[in-house]
């Protein structure tokens, strides 16, 4: 896939002269990561599994707090996060694209993945296991399904939740703790369960 196939939108950085530049406590950010003013990333392991080769791999807007978040981004992965977001120990597993709006809160130990990482068909899974083994370095892996995850503005996601590939969560939705989301969620509803069920409105 062509890495530049997807538009790499850049969030406008705050125009306020007084606001401090964003930073990662672990040191210098990879050069294809861009974060807005007053955005803080904590956690030494934030980029431990960061392998994106995209020209723009991760864009975070202004005034966001990324506490102990894992940006596990594969070679073609691209993550976009808006302003005033607050994530604690979220694990973002991205091989294609994860788009998160502004004012989104994500609780502790929540996983968001835009792929299943391995093929479904048994024969292809054998080929994948062989390609992944130390005996077959640089062997190409079979095609693996990847589907964009979109989380709109004002979404709240509780701790221990799981958001899987292809999911689109509408603005203002409230995802209870421990919920497993495999289907789209309309705006401003409250969901919980495995699989997620609508239990009310916001």
């Amino acid at each position, binding site marked *: 896939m062509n890495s530049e196939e997807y538009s790499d939108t850049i969030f406008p950085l705050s125009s306020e002269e007084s606001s401090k530049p964003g930073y990662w406590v672990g040191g210098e950010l990879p050069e294809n990561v861009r974060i807005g003013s007053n955005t803080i990333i904590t956690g030494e392991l934030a980029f431990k599994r960061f392998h994106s080769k995209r020209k723009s791999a991760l864009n975070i807007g202004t005034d966001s707090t990324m506490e102990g978040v894992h940006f596990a981004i594969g070679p073609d992965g691209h993550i976009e996060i808006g302003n005033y977001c*607050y994530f604690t120990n979220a694990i973002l597993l991205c091989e294609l694209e994860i788009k998160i709006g502004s004012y989104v*809160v994500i*609780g502790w130990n929540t996983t968001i993945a835009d792929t299943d990482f391995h093929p479904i068909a048994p024969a292809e899974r054998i080929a994948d296991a062989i390609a992944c083994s130390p005996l077959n370095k640089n062997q190409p892996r079979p095609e693996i399904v990847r589907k964009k995850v979109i989380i709109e503005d004002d979404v709240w996601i509780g*701790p*221990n939740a799981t958001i899987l590939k292809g999911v689109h969560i509408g603005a203002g939705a409230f995802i209870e703790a421990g*919920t497993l989301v495999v289907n789209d969620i309309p705006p401003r509803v*409250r969901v919980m*369960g495995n699989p997620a069920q609508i239990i009310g409105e916001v």
Partner: protein
Amino acid sequence: MVNPGGTLSWDWHPGTIPVNAVIDETAYVETTYSFVLYRSIVPVGVSIGKGTSVYKGTMFDVGNQGQVNLGNYTLLNGTRIVCDAEIKIGDYALISWNVVLMDTYRISFLPAERRQELERVSKRELRRIDANVQARPINIESNVWIGFDACVLPGVTIGEGSIVGARSVVTTDVEPYTIVAGNPARFIRRLDE
């Protein structure tokens, strides 16, 4: 020995036990890292009873007015405690890894109010959500066993002797001596008393 205000001789983290902790001399705390999110200022913010052990991965994410009480011979093995009111755990309880016990959502259910709080958070020196929303105490009675990755939501009481299955989400009270499981958790069967 685990002394309030003191360090732990076996600790890898350069922290201290909170000064407003009451910890039995026979209790074990693996690391003071468990208290990096602790900011309770009530007279006794956390109490840990006789023979109770708190292993690494356990986090006391306790707000200003939060109070956590752990009984005797209880075991916390990597539990996330989010407490702004009170979380009480009885004796002989077994609480597994990645279990979330939360007595508060910390932030409003209404998107507009969440926006205001998130804007305030971004201006704070310590980036903590502290929106003063209603917290509802959690009471986990004695001899309760909670499996890994489970969540216990605000206001829940789990009765004595009960079992909560792994990955369950407990939204309502659990009667004593029952097994519940599922997301949301539902009654599975009764246990002999």
